[in-house]
């Protein structure tokens, strides 16, 4: 399914230049690291190290490309449960990120404020409106010389069906908020294919109805994603309002480690619909442009393996949080009732 092109974003210089050769090689390293970490996490689950995981296999280009287009010093990312690759690209502490999959803390242990990466979000469509609110806050704060901070909301094709996503797009367009709605259309919402989910066939096509520009891009082409994201972010940063980016990609793995895709699609389908591996595609680009050779890839892939192993060690070492933390973070200012419950819990469960 080759993505139909759609591009209503007015041509405009992106803030950032196209990636230079060093950045291109960095992009490959990121892709490789993310691929390695993702497949490792699936293995960790099989080995019993973590109870579950939501693989992003096949979406590496979309996620690394999107993350690369974001300025992590002043933009803010609102992820779902599948944005491991964005987190990695933005430099989120990956051991702390993985803690949520180890069932240690729902939102993850990483610091969302320092990371500019909101807590892990399990409600489909739950955080899209937050991006709009955060972004409107940037407008209220007023632009600096180089423009506004941009809220980047991640959502899937399935999420696009939620009422909240519509409300978010309408609010953003009415408020002219600096938001990028970054849709990963990966063909599936668990077992439901996009055709049975997204009436009209494209989330980007909805943007026009809100008077918003949109770009529909080949989500398995990392450079195309970088460019689309940079352009969208630049548009929002300049105070010109929200943009939809729809990256057409494919969820190559199961929905999660407890899913069984064999019940709703064949391996044959996967092969045809998945298309060429986004990493292979980018390898060809680098080779063709003479920017990398086999030894570069070998080194990058080995580095990715090392990095994944380091993260694994960190995840292994992660201890459960003390039960008392259940009570500690409910409020900034606790209440007498909660205090009494915490005391009772301590007496009965910690026998103190």
């Amino acid at each position, binding site marked *: 399914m080759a993505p139909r092109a759609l591009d209503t974003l007015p041509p405009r210089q992106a803030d950032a230049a196209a990636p230079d050769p060093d950045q291109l090689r960095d992009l490959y390293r990121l892709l490789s690291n993310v691929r390695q970490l993702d497949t490792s996490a699936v293995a960790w689950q099989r080995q019993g190290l973590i*109870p*579950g995981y939501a693989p992003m296999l096949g979406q590496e280009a979309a996620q690394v490309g999107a993350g690369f287009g974001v300025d992590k010093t002043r933009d803010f990312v609102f992820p779902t*449960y599948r944005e491991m690759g964005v987190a990695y690209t933005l430099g989120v502490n990956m051991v702390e990120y993985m803690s*949520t999959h*180890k*069932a*240690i*803390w*729902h*939102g993850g242990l990483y610091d969302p404020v320092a990371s500019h990466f909101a807590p*892990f979000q*399990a*409600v*489909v469509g739950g955080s899209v409106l937050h991006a709009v609110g955060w972004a409107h806050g940037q407008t209220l704060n007023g632009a600096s010389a180089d423009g506004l901070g941009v809220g980047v909301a991640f959502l899937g094709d*399935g*999420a696009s*069906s*939620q*009422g*909240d996503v519509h409300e978010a797009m309408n609010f953003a367009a009415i408020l002219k908020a600096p938001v990028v709605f970054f849709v990963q259309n990966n063909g599936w*919402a*668990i*077992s*439901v294919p996009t055709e*049975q*989910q*997204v*009436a009209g066939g494209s989330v980007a096509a909805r943007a026009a109805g809100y008077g918003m520009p949109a770009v529909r891009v080949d989500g398995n082409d990392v450079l195309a994603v970088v460019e689309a994201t940079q352009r969208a972010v630049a548009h929002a940063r300049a105070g010109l309002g929200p943009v939809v980016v729809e990256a057409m990609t494919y969820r190559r793995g199961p929905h999660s480690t*407890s*899913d069984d895709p064999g*019940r*709703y699609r064949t391996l044959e389908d996967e092969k045809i619909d998945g298309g060429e591996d986004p990493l292979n595609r980018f390898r060809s680009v680098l080779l063709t442009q003479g920017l990398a050779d086999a030894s570069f890839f070998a080194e990058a892939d080995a580095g990715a393996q090392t990095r994944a192993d380091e993260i694994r060690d960190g995840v292994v070492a992660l201890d*459960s*949080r003390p*039960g008392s*933390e*259940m*009570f500690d973070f*409910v409020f900034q200012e606790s209440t007498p*009732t*909660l205090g009494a*419950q*915490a005391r009772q*819990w301590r007496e*009965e*469960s910690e026998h103190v």
Partner: protein
Amino acid sequence: MSEVLEGVRETAPTPLLQLSMQQAINRALGEILESDDRALIFGEDVGVLGGVFRVTDGLQQRFGANRVFDTPLAESGILGTAIGLAMAGFHPIPEVQFDGFAYPAVNQIITQLARMNYRSRGRLPMQVTLRVPSFGGIRAPEHHGESLESLFAHVPGLKVASPSNPQQAYHLLKHAASMPDPVIFMEPKARYWNKAGVNLAADEDTASLEGSVIARPGKHATLIAWGAMVSRCLQVAELAAEDGIELEVLDLRWLKPIDEAGLAASVSRTRRAIVVHEGPHTAGLGAEIAALVSQSCFDTLRAPVERVTGFDVPYPSGDLEDEYIPNIDRILFGVQRVLEYRRG
């Protein structure tokens, strides 16, 4: 657990099938679709996949994609569509995939589903059976372990049931689906996979499917529970019995309407009560139970009704789940408190 205690009349001996609750519900759904051609099943991933818990497994194949279908990912949409289908004379049996994802549908449930019969003065009945895999205990991600019973039970116009074992799930769902009013059917997902004997024939006496059941008789105190907490309370009763303490376990089964007479009958005998639930403490359904029992058994109660519940904290991540959900220790502490209570 004897059949008499399950409230079901003795019938000609039928071989018991060993079924998990997930299988028992699947079987009940198949029979409902078979006997009622207005019945429709729909929701997220219930069709081709057969549901994330396989509760609707095979039903689309058997009954076709008109009767069993996947919807877009939008819970308000699912409930609103169900209401319209009921207005058109169908009997929708929608699923919300997990408890925590019922919140987006709360507006349709409260302002529309629960009120359409009332608003239309009985002309637009809402025979809608909403299945919600519910409660915690499976180390799942955030929002997959919620207890919404006190929210639903508070809403005029809704009925709410929760089965505790496969036998009950099978009959209770068929019964709920036969009712001409909206029923929220809260399936304890932690119990989906435990097998037990199911007597398919035992559904003749409808009355036996109303109200609560005594899951284990006892005389020193009554443990009141529903869903997955029933089997935990049975374990507690087993342990307490070793110390000579005979705990009665009352399986509430219907969370709205609440079997006030059944509660009063049990506690006025045992004179002590502990209500156990997973949901947060404040304004949980345990408060209603405690208030009812404190009133109906005012003269006989020998100790304040104990509530052993989830804490007033967001449902925690898997590692802390056992600290949050009432565990055997915490329930035993509650039992101890009611048994040792002395008027000051």
